[in-house]
């Protein structure tokens, strides 16, 4: 067995980047599973792709533009009906910035 492809510390760092809480048990299990998957994926390292262009779009297409014409959009009430919390016709969210008064 070589070094792990991903350490527990890296798992914690990535979970933080993804804004996703993992318990200690979940993080341990995640480390083992990601290590196994990344171990398999390492087979790609054997391919020399330095001169190959990446494919971001499988089917070549031009950037689509449409006429800039106003159209009816979804009703505000219907959208807000799905929100966990609303206030004054908008989404109510936890405090984003602390402001000293």
């Amino acid at each position: 067995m070589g070094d792990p492809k991903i350490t527990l510390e890296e798992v914690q760092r990535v979970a933080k980047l993804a804004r996703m809480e993992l318990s200690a048990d979940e993080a341990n299990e995640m480390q083992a599973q990601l290590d196994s998957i990344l171990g398999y994926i390492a087979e790609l390292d054997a391919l020399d792709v330095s001169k190959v262009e990446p494919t971001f779009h499988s089917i070549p297409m031009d950037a689509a533009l449409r006429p800039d014409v106003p159209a009816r959009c979804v009703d505000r009430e219907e959208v807000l009906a799905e929100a966990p919390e609303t206030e004054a016709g908008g989404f109510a969210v936890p405090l984003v910035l602390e402001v000293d008064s």
Partner: protein
Amino acid sequence: MTDFPWQGAFEIRERIDQGETSAVDVTRAFLDRVETLNARLNAFLYVDHEGALAAAAGVDRARAAGAPLGPLAGVPVAVKDNLCTRGVTTTCASKILGGYVPPYDAHVIEALRHAGAVIVGKTNLDEFAMGSSNENSAFGNVLNPWDVKRAPGGSSGGSACAIAAGLASLALGSDTGGSVRQPGAFCGVNAFKPTYGRVSRYGLIAFASSLDQVGPMARSVRESAAMLEVIAGHDPRDATSADQPLSGYVEACDAGVKGLRVGVCRDQIEGVQDADVKKALDSALAALEAQGASLVDVTLPHAKHAVSAYYLIAPAEASSNLARFDGMRYGLRVTGSDLTDTYNKTRGEGFGPEVRRRIMLGTYALSAGYYDAFYLRAQRVRTLIRQDYDDAFSKCDVLCTPTTPTPAFALGEKTSDPLEMYLADIFTLPPSLAGLPAISTPCGLSGGGLPIGIQIVAPPFEEGRICSAAQVVEDACGLVTSPPPAFA
């Protein structure tokens, strides 16, 4: 005339058109069957009794008024629960979207309604369409109607099961790396993944945006072709929707295969261990040859890297797409001590294990210092896979492999090892990465009585060729007239 519930969509429409039955009666009969069987099969997460009967009544009223009926008038359709349906819950089989009611219809839902289809309900899936067995649904897995101890496949397992068990005539699924084709193969139905861009993704809840396509599922090739005609076409609301001419797909089913060059992927097929799968594939190829096609050996030397490339690209795109589920605008919110803590708790509790795994994998592959080594490398390998297809299609018109290396595996067999589950997608991933259209059509049963599918792939926007070839396979060794014995 075929008995309920196995009549085809065309027959149902014809009988309604002729006044032999009403759309409401047809819908009631299917709803009753769903009522009886769904508690066991778990194919539907939500059955829309009221909406279905209202749509059916609309068809009957239109007919009474002498208005022309749409191509799917009165035909009961099951819809995967990652397609937005206005006023009807759309959950992606995730706790984070439990009870979510979209304020708009997906493009494909609008198209179905316009065609007169009756939407029976929303079908079960692996959470956010991530999985190959349906075992990642937050609301319990679907059963395979051919053997209830086996996986129905995933992620569109509910849609595949619904039509295989006669709970609806037609279904829509979505396919990112095989998510209509693999359950289609496992449940013995046709499953069509169109060319990337052929069908609008507007209102399909995004998993991996460079790969996702909505696809028709049906017991017959002809019905899937008819459904493709209804949902395909340019839609300005999806920037990747292709403005390419459509051909008559139903008509293409009758075109035959005389002179068609059928590529056989020898290098991919060599790895198949399952004797039943090999035998079924050979019988399908023999049928094509007997009808005038020529078989050509081709190779896809880089297809073996598709699993690695896909499981970097799709999770990377997913990690970005699923960032929108943050507990602010819709779905679950688990309140924490501050904003960040609220995000962390909402997402930690709202997503199931496989979705969390893929978000982690994707976030890792895109993170600073790893982007070039993982994500960019995978996109370069994707180019090699595309080039393999370009080479192959200079020698052949369509290309065949099995859809899956084995018939349906047992429920629970692969849940402990995510990598093992990923490797089951080996044949469906390469066409997905290349954006190509592909069908899985049934081509026989295993010794144990499980369906087997052949995958037929074509160059971009050549869905018509797929219809012609698949119809020949169906005529020779399909399962249209052999529903699963326990539900026949």
